[in-house]
């Protein structure tokens, strides 16, 4: 009896000590996948961006509220013609290997990013930069080939982060961020520790661990059992169940990612705006948002999401199958038609479920859509084909306007110059008025003028129904209640800079 209680006591002590050191020590975040690469310029996915955002920092920072703050740059000035930008580099910043951050490192890092030989996927963000010059130890001058209003927004993109050049950053990621790299067990976990020489307020935790857990059932179980503090991408059906757990809360933070199904605007019958409008009326976006996504999304009223500079609500296509049938009849398809809906499977929140729901709603107005799913890479390849060879009439995609500026969300997706494979305009939408508006908006330095230009462009895009507009996504993240200060960023990154564990 006595021995039994002694054992219990010592067990309690041990677990107490363990949980204490656990609480002080390491925040564990379970993500859906392993980072593809720790070099911030080499990866294109948000799990990689989340990890690299703790190791590397950008010149400017996009706050969760959507404003742009100076970060590694402490200030800047612009010349009157808008072509020369001068950045003051923050003093007292050091890399994890002890090297102080100076203008030289910034120049080297930016040069690396825009070097065509490196062929980074996001190089297009800064292609307007013609040269980078060091003026003195803490001043850098950036010259542009032409005026470019979203420059600062683009410098907040995680792939433009300032890195220590000349290293294989995948093996030895050396940056200036609040955490430094410890180890990466591929396919399993990345371990970081607090960087004691960090220039700003040091994090309240000693370590940070990212787990790669693709199975959502497993990922949710980790946060339920306390083996992880944070599990991302909660399936909508698990929200209520997890919230019923006294130690877990599901956070619901809007994302700048818009989900849509684009029409191939050059292909019969999608080249008729009436057909595109009919499909917009035929799909019950509200029902999908409520019943397939558990109410955890926002039905779109513009091609970009709220929280993005330039967003204005421009309309809605309320569910109206009668009107859809009338429009189809008017366009010469009274009995509907057959088509193929391409859908990713597991890329976006409930993507295949949404596609199946749309398939069944389209059937009600006579449109017989076959669902075609492909693996993600194959999917991108299939949709990235010039108009004359393109076989995709309808396809679901999402676009995260991660710079927080409508230029990134509209120019790349609707400008005629951006038709695939040269850009990301997979719908081959083309309208010279929209082109002119978008061109003007990316050069004009006046924010108020830009907002109006974007509103005008989006109105045309909406009325012509370039896409089947669906919703903007929400990030559903399960967080243990002893975690304080986690930032769930609208750009789909999870930031532990200010986290403390109770």
């Amino acid at each position: 009896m006595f021995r039994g209680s002694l054992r219990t006591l010592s067990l309690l002590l041990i677990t107490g000590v363990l949980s204490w050191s656990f609480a002080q020590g390491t925040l564990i975040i379970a993500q859906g996948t392993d980072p593809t690469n720790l070099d911030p310029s080499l990866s294109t996915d948000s799990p990689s961006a989340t990890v690299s955002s703790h190791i590397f920092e950008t010149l400017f920072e996009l706050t969760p509220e959507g404003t742009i703050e100076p970060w590694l740059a402490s200030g800047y000035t612009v010349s009157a013609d808008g072509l020369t930008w001068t950045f003051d580099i923050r003093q007292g910043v050091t890399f994890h290997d002890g090297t102080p951050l100076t203008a030289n490192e910034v120049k080297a890092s930016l040069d690396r990013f825009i070097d065509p030989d490196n062929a980074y996927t996001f190089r297009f963000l800064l292609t307007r930069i013609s040269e980078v010059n060091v003026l003195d130890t803490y001043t850098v001058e950036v010259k542009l080939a032409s005026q470019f209003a979203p420059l600062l927004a683009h410098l907040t993109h995680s792939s433009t982060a300032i890195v220590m050049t000349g290293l294989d950053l995948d093996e030895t990621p050396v940056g200036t961020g609040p955490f430094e790299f410890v180890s990466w067990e591929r396919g399993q976990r990345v371990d970081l520790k607090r960087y004691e020489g960090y220039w700003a307020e040091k994090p309240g935790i000693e370590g940070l661990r990212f787990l790669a857990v693709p199975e959502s059932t497993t990922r949710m179980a980790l946060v339920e059992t306390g083996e992880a503090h944070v599990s991302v991408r909660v399936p909508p059906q698990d929200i209520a169940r997890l919230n019923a757990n006294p130690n877990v809360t599901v956070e619901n933070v809007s994302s700048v990612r818009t989900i849509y199904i684009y029409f191939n605007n050059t292909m019969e019958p999608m080249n008729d705006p009436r057909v595109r409008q009919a499909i917009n009326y035929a799909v019950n976006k509200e029902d999908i948002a409520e019943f397939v996504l558990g109410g955890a999304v926002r039905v779109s009223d513009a091609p970009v999401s709220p929280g993005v500079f330039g967003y204005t609500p421009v309309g809605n296509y309320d569910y109206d199958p009668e009107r859809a049938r009338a429009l189809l009849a008017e366009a010469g398809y009274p009995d509907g038609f057959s088509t193929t809906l391409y859908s990713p499977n597991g890329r976006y929140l409930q993507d295949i479920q949404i596609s199946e729901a749309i398939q069944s709603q389209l059937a009600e107005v006579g449109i017989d859509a076959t669902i075609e799913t492909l693996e993600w890479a194959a999917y991108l390849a299939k949709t990235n084909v010039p108009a004359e060879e393109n076989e995709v009439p309808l396809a679901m995609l999402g676009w995260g306007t991660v710079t927080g500026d409508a230029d990134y969300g509209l120019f790349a997706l609707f400008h005629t110059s951006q038709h695939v494979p040269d850009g990301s305009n997979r719908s081959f939408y083309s309208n010279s008025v929209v082109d002119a508006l978008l061109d003007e908006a990316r050069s004009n330095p006046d924010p108020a003028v830009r907002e109006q230009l974007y509103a005008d462009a989006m109105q045309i895009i909406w009325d012509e129904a370039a896409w089947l507009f669906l919703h903007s996504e929400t990030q559903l993240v399960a967080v243990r209640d002893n975690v304080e200060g986690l930032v769930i960023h609208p750009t789909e990154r999870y930031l532990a800079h200010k986290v403390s564990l109770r």
Partner: protein
Amino acid sequence: MLQYTLRRVLIAIPSILGVMIIVFAMVRLAPGDPAQLLAGEFADAETIELIRERFGLNDSMPRQFTRFVTGVFQGDLGESTRTKRLVTSDLATFFPNTLELALGAIVVALVFGIPAGILASLRPNSPIDLAVMLGALIGVSMPVFWFGLLAILIFSVQLGWFPVAGRGTLRHLVLPALTLGLSSMAIIARMTRSSMLEVLNQDFVRTARAKGLFWRAIVLKHALRNALVPVVTVIGLQFGALLAGAVITETVFTWPGIGSLLVVSILARDYPVVQGAVLLIAVSFIAVNLIVDLVYGFIDPRIRYD
């Protein structure tokens, strides 16, 4: 013995060559431009040309194949299009984890399979025998991933006995090893049972029984030793099957092995890694079979002359 060993090794060579042909053909037969496939989806025209040059994709097929084989023997399997790392370094990281899981599964299969088989063989057609045989059949009839997910829900989430996922301590190994070992366990139990039955009906066991030796002692001393010889072969074959079965188990339990690497790479169309992983699994399987053959020939010299 030397002659036998040599003959076995020589027979394995065409298989390895065949495996290489299949792996080599994968990229060439897949729809699309092999250079594009090897360069990855995001590659630009310039990179694709570079890859075409590097792998000599304009050369004749036999020349390409020679180059591929030479590369394999020099440890050059190319670079992952997804992670931009050398394929060999990824394989070296993940393969030991798969071996660990497969060994764990073999241990589970033996520890449960052999006693169950013996138990069943002692009273053929009894309710115990029937239960073991039915259990073994259910074991091979169950979709592995369903069993794994149920195991997670029951033993990790509800009971909290084992960690949900990941690799590290012995406790992390239990559920994945059990899941992966399930069908091998069933096969080993059946094998043990039938070879026990065969031995138990042989003359020397009957004689021993007639002499009045304690029944259990007979079983353990004589019968079991003889009965386990064919079981050794099954273990060898099962080990290969486990390497392949790991593809599903590893995905369920987030086990960082070659199987989950293979699945991720297929879904990302990362062909260099797919080629490397398939080659590694197949060659390991051939090697394990070769070793089993040799060990078996050593234990039982009669089979050398078959």
